[in-house]
């Protein structure tokens, strides 16, 4: 695999970056996410998670099926703040919205 191959296009994480993270001691997808930043951009891992998981599996010699996906974060896709602001019913920020 070319070392400069970009696996996470949002955060420019390369195959080499993943191999380096594993060599530094990060073995799980949660840790590799934090060390490389993969999956923290606009796609939130929807494009890159499988490619990175395969690269981590190769670098760790672990079966890819033993790797757990990182915790998915809301919202499902990037959403303008004004859409969420319109949901708020209370006039004061900080007031609990869940009844």
């Amino acid at each position, binding site marked *: 695999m070319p070392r400069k191959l970009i696996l996470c296009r949002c955060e420019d994480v390369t195959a080499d970056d993943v191999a380096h993270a594993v060599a530094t001691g*990060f073995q799980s997808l949660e840790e590799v996410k934090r060390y490389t930043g993969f999956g923290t951009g606009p796609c939130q891992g929807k494009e890159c998670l499988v490619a990175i998981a395969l690269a981590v599996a190769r670098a760790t010699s672990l079966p890819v099926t033993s790797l757990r996906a990182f915790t998915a974060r809301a919202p499902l896709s990037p959403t303008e703040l004004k859409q969420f602001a319109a949901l708020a019913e209370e006039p004061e920020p900080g007031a609990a919205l869940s009844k």
Partner: protein
Amino acid sequence: MTSPPKRLAGVQGPLPASAELVIVGGGVMGLALAYNLAVRGQKNVVVLEGSYLASGASGRNGGGLRQQWSTEMNIRLMQESLEICGAFARDMGINVWMRQGGYLFLMRTAETRAQIERNIALQNRCDVPTRLITTDEARRIVPELAADRFLAASYNPTDAVVFPWPFLWGYAGAASRCGARIYTDTAVTALERRGPDYVVTTGRGSVTAPRVVNAAGAWSPRVAALLGLTLPDWPARHEILSTEPLKPFLGPMVSVLESGLYVSQSTRGELVGGITMHEPKTNEIKLGSRLSFLGAMAQGLVEVMPLLGEVKVVRQWAGPYDLTSDGNPIVGEAPGWPGFFLCCGFMGHGFMMAPVVAKYYALHLLGLETHPLFERWRLSRFAEGGTEAEGMIIG
């Protein structure tokens, strides 16, 4: 050939049978303490982390470093913490993306202003250059502010933000190079006193040590309960969000004192921030994300800076604050449990305090020097009733 990378993560494997000191919790407090002990020559330090590094509150916070506190001890501690953070990249060889853009606190009421004026006088006596400024001056610092919605602001240009994760790897890597051993995925399942020692049992075996430090943050009451010791701190979910990256435009961390809203721009360009969400007191650690937080935070942000309505939220997450009834932490040896030390209850502000607290904690454990924080933040104060409350707890 380049040299192999330094190991920055913890290790997994069987535990040693014994240690001089076991630290429960591989968050910033436990790792910074391990480093501060090991670098001063303490042998056989073992850190036990139940999950991975940065899995708890240390990996979930907003990375703020401020000196705008309401008690002199906290102001002075944070001055020193900021100095340590400023040298961290050089000393530890890892970039922590520190940016000294200041903190701008907005306030709505005269009551808040009166309290903030008292705080500023105290901060100025400690040589922190905080100023009470008008909303017009605030708008010169952040032109996007809807400043007419506020009464005044307090501004200290020397407060800062950092990227939290590299702090953990920096401390973990440096502690390991000094001989400390850091175990991840190694949750403590039992704690037992045996003669002068404690037997700490995990899924990877047991380790016996004469001294144990409970630095488990929001999990610290559970760790203490394994011994039969009841701690008065409790966990509270705090939610946070991150937006798409924007061109750098926001100098300071901006916070609204009455709502607990805070937002800063990271060096990656994202806006990162949270807001107080009132929740019933519970002993459960809840880390789920809620739509109601997005609503409250979005409304608060758009009120402070209306043009942010067009900015997209990319993700939200939550971390646990570790709260106490007087806004102060819990440190020192637990009465009745010789050798069992507490380092918890940091009120959601442990990340910024860890660099300096860990230094004084190490000096205390090594018998080299003690600090007034061990008197002020002792566990027995809750029964005796007598520590000045800290008023500047945000979020």
